[in-house]
């Protein structure tokens, strides 16, 4: 019972009151403006996306989110993949009240769990950005590099496994990030 209470307190303690405000996405696998328009239109259709500004030359999409709406980061990569392409990089920005992040710790930001692969007791206050490095958000080569930063299994699937069910319920989506 005590352990449960402790775990519960830990969970509450690690839940950060934060709101995602924007993201910067780079798409790969395309060069032409018609392909880029397919990506932009797909991102425009995502329910929590407010606006998408595009740099076609560099395949860069600056996305702002609607206020007080639940942000589902996987929906962004799904939109790009449905348009026929891939995410090369995704940097998300959130407003934090105050939270300290540590390497290999699972922390709830907004509605989702995050696992920072390189943080060292970093305090996040105000606006902070970090890069998502799960499989569908980086190239294969980069994924290999980033996933080597932790020994925990969850990095391979993006879901909580034996390594981390103390923090989070099993099979919960965990985004892996570097900051």
């Amino acid at each position, binding site marked *: 019972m005590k352990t449960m209470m402790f775990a519960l307190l830990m969970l509450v303690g690690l839940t950060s009151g934060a709101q995602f405000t924007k993201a910067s996405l780079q798409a*790969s*696998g395309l060069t032409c*403006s018609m392909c880029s328009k397919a990506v932009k239109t797909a991102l425009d259709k995502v329910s929590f996306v407010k606006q998408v500004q595009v740099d*076609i030359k560099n*395949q860069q999409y600056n996305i702002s989110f609607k206020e007080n709406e639940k942000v589902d980061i996987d929906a962004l990569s799904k939109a790009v993949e449905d348009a026929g392409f891939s995410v090369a990089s995704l940097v998300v920005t959130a407003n934090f009240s105050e939270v300290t992040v540590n390497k290999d710790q699972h922390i709830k930001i907004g509605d989702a769990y995050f696992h920072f692969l390189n943080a060292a007791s970093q305090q996040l206050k105000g606006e902070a950005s970090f890069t998502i490095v799960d499989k569908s958000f980086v190239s294969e080569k980069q994924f290999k590099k980033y996933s080597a930063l932790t020994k925990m299994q969850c990095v391979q699937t993006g879901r909580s496994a034996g390594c981390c069910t103390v923090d989070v319920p099993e099979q919960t989506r965990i985004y892996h990030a570097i900051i």
Partner: protein
Amino acid sequence: MKKSLIYLSLVLLSISVKAQELYVFSEPASNMPANTFAPRMKAVIGKRENTSAFQRYNPELQLGLSKKFMLHGGVTFSNMMFENVQWEGAYLYGKYRFYSSDKLHQHFRMAAFGEIGYSRNEMMNDEVSARGDNTALDIGLIATQLKNKFAVSATTSYLKVLDKNLDEMHHETVDEAINYSLSAGYLVLPLEYTSYDQLNLNLYAEVLGQRTFGKKSYFIDVAPAIQFIFNSNSKLNVGYRFQVAGDALRGVEKSFLVSFEHTFFNAL
């Protein structure tokens, strides 16, 4: 001649231009986006001996059903067998992208496709197709590589003619064939992308061939084309296709193609 062609190819390869794979005479391994549809109107006009010009009109609807699967369905009207242009057939084409590897400004993709076509035309030529000419089944593979801003695509397919009157009509008819194509394209304009409203100008060069079984007839065509893209959603294609080698009996050996297509992104 050969030397200068090779030299030209090397120059084209080294020019740092953005390659395009929205080919005019063939399909790339890439699919159209999911939940997207695009109506297309195509016209082919060719010169024939001792008779009026060959005309074929081909309205088509393209559907992106998922990121991996797309469908084309269309009908063709022509004067191949008639004095006037008449409805001659219909077809359904499906393409499944089964391999995709994306990197920044490059990708390699592979897809499998199948097409079934119905045609009212009587079997007359060695050239066979599932699009207007014959009732036939066509299945094949496509591989498209985009690297260092240069794209090339190869297609190969097996075509089985299903025309009922195959044996009754002729003694020596074609009932199976292998199709192949090699396509390349590059973007001439704009020099630098700043907006979706810029006019895109693409140039293409394709080689399209067919070899039939049994009769062993063949043809090899070269097909250059120019493509204008407006507002990043409408394509106007103008191409010319001509035979460079072959002994196959064909309806037409030289033809012009004009097609227009508008894409409705995320409209389904």
